[in-house]
């Protein structure tokens, strides 16, 4: 008899790595602008579908991925300039609703361009799944897990070691003081959207070989990534990644040991608990107590 636990944990890590990548995009924009970007899942969708189209034009996978990410960065920048910037200074709720509208527009446009059929991308390193501790792990999941760690490290270096990173952090802390120092919060908002669009696109391209890519994948991805980001406290990138893996593990363990089919409900129950117990997120609070 094969034990369930190793497989459930590996499944949780696979799914969790997907949520973690999406959660990072939420955190990046929230940190700089104080708004939740509900079009974050759509960046992943656009990245995956653009990449699939470029592959169809016989580009190699690395080149197609690169072009797709660059294109989505431009889309993110355009979104910021055309929809967020004109409403700069509005109530955050207004801005959040704008991002919601943009996400619906992206979904509708994608349906027109790509149709309703799912697309897929080849695995980056094809081959049989890896045997690990009595369970199996898809090779592509290794990419997703590795990428989520690499992005956290990259963001950490960017924010703590580089001047633009420090400027972004400063804007999040005190926008008024920043303007006095000659840092434009508007430009920082543009930087945040561009970066996080690129991040979303990378996430979409990495997970498409596992899940497939459809025009409406952004909605559920965005929702789960949002839950992960909130559990992590919304402002802390490493915590958001941990939140993503936590949601993935909760889902797979509920499916494995409790009644399957209730994993979604239990995930949101955990979110509610987190919000009731500690409004700013579980991990965030723990860290603050340490400090």
């Amino acid at each position, binding site marked *: *008899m*094969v034990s*369930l636990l190793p*497989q*459930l944990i*590996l*499944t949780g890590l*696979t*799914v969790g790595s*997907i949520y973690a990548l999406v959660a990072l995009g939420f955190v990046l924009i929230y940190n700089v602008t104080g708004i939740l970007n509900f079009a974050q899942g759509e960046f992943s969708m656009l990245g995956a579908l653009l990449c699939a189209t470029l592959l169809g034009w016989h580009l190699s996978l690395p080149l197609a991925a690169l072009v797709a990410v660059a294109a989505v960065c431009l889309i993110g920048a355009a979104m910021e300039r055309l929809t967020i910037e004109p409403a700069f200074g509005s109530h955050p709720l207004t801005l959040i609703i704008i991002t919601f509208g943009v996400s619906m527009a992206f979904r*509708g446009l994608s*349906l027109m361009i790509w*149709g*309703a*059929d*799912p*697309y*897929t991308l080849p695995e980056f390193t094809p081959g049989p*799944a890896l045997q690990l501790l009595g*369970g*199996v792990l*898809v090779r592509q999941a290794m990419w997703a897990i590795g990428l989520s760690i690499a992005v956290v490290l990259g963001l950490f270096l960017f924010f703590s070691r580089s001047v633009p990173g420090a400027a972004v952090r400063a804007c999040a802390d005190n926008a008024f003081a920043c303007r006095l120092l000659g840092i434009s919060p508007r430009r920082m908002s543009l930087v945040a959207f561009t970066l996080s669009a690129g991040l979303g696109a990378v996430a979409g391209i990495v*997970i498409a070989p*596992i*899940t*497939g890519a*459809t025009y*409406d994948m952004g909605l*559920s991805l965005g929702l789960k990534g949002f839950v992960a980001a909130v559990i992590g406290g919304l402002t802390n990138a490493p915590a958001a990644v941990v939140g993503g893996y936590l949601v993935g593990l909760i889902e*797979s363990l509920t*499916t*494995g040991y409790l009644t*399957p*089919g209730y*994993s*979604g409900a239990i995930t949101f129950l955990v979110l509610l608990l987190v919000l009731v117990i500690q409004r700013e997120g579980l991990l965030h609070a723990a860290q603050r107590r340490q400090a």
Partner: protein
Amino acid sequence: MKGTVKSTGRCEAIAAVVAVVGGLLLAGFPALGQGAPIKIGTVFAVTGPASSLGKPEKDTATMLQSQLSSAGGIGGRPVQIITYDSESDPTKAVLLMKKAVTEDNAIAVVGGTTSPESQAMADYAMQADVPFMSVAASTTLSVPSRAWVFQMPQRNSIAAAKAMEYLVAIHARTFAFLYRNDDFGQDGLVAMRAFARQHGMTIVDTEPFAATDTDLSAQVARARVHNPDVMVVWSTPPTASIAAKNIRQLGMRVPILESHGIANKAFIQLAGPAAEGVVFPAGKLLVANQLPPEDPQRALLLKYARDFEAANHYTANTFGGHAYDGITMLVDAIRHVGPDRARIREYLEHLRGFIGTGGIFNMSPQDHNGLTTRDMVLVVIHNGDWKIWKP
């Protein structure tokens, strides 16, 4: 005062022009001056989670509209097919059906892409006494039969019976059943349970999952513990493909049997190599060119596929075929008995030997589906393509 009257008049004139132009645009410029058009309402899930089914259904309706227009309508009267998008939402579906019936004065309605949409629309059809041709497969849509409701796809219990023929043929004794936890999956579970009992087979494990799940290896791992002879999956892509992939990734080599919900190329694209060898019950459209020449459906199936692919950029599939059957059956009824709801209903109920894409329909007051397992074939995926499965 005078100014107000004048401007109101101008407003009315503008409104009239807008109404006429808008009407023409909506109607797709029907041939003018041959009496009021006969209207057929269609409500499909063109967008939303069920869009991979609803899109080909709508595209089929559009194709039939242009064919009917160039053929000059029915008996000289133009036919207008009104298409609405339910966005995969049962509430919207029933509201749009109401709109088609009360505002557009549609003589009958085709649609209800998913079973929940069709259920809601069927209830309305019964209230309003409107013929409704459902394109969803839930068994409860035609069992027990309801006066105004007709079902175009082979209902789920027929598909399950066909799937069972495969399990019987390979002498399976046990199987695990993975299903999407909604109307479609549960319908399959009920039918497969009953058939398994009849054939002395054991369902060793049942595993529900959600339509939005991105990984099913937890469910597969649970099923694997029971060592089933066959893994049976009852869903549509993408989850149907993810299940097949996860089964192979976890090293299980047993045969995979899936449902008629995977009868489109999306399944093969998403599942990749894991699709190889998967068997499923389907209407004959998928393998039309492999049918023997004497098959009565062959010519129609090939024509539908050819016409559809000439008008659209993707392969014809069975879902569009269900819309084709619903609309052509109504056109046939109107041609014979005229645009009268009660007489159309009466005609459809006694329609026998009607050759459609889904099979040869033999309706009766007790059976508003009129199809049997003979109207389906078992298909195996071989080298990324569909082949008729042979034991």
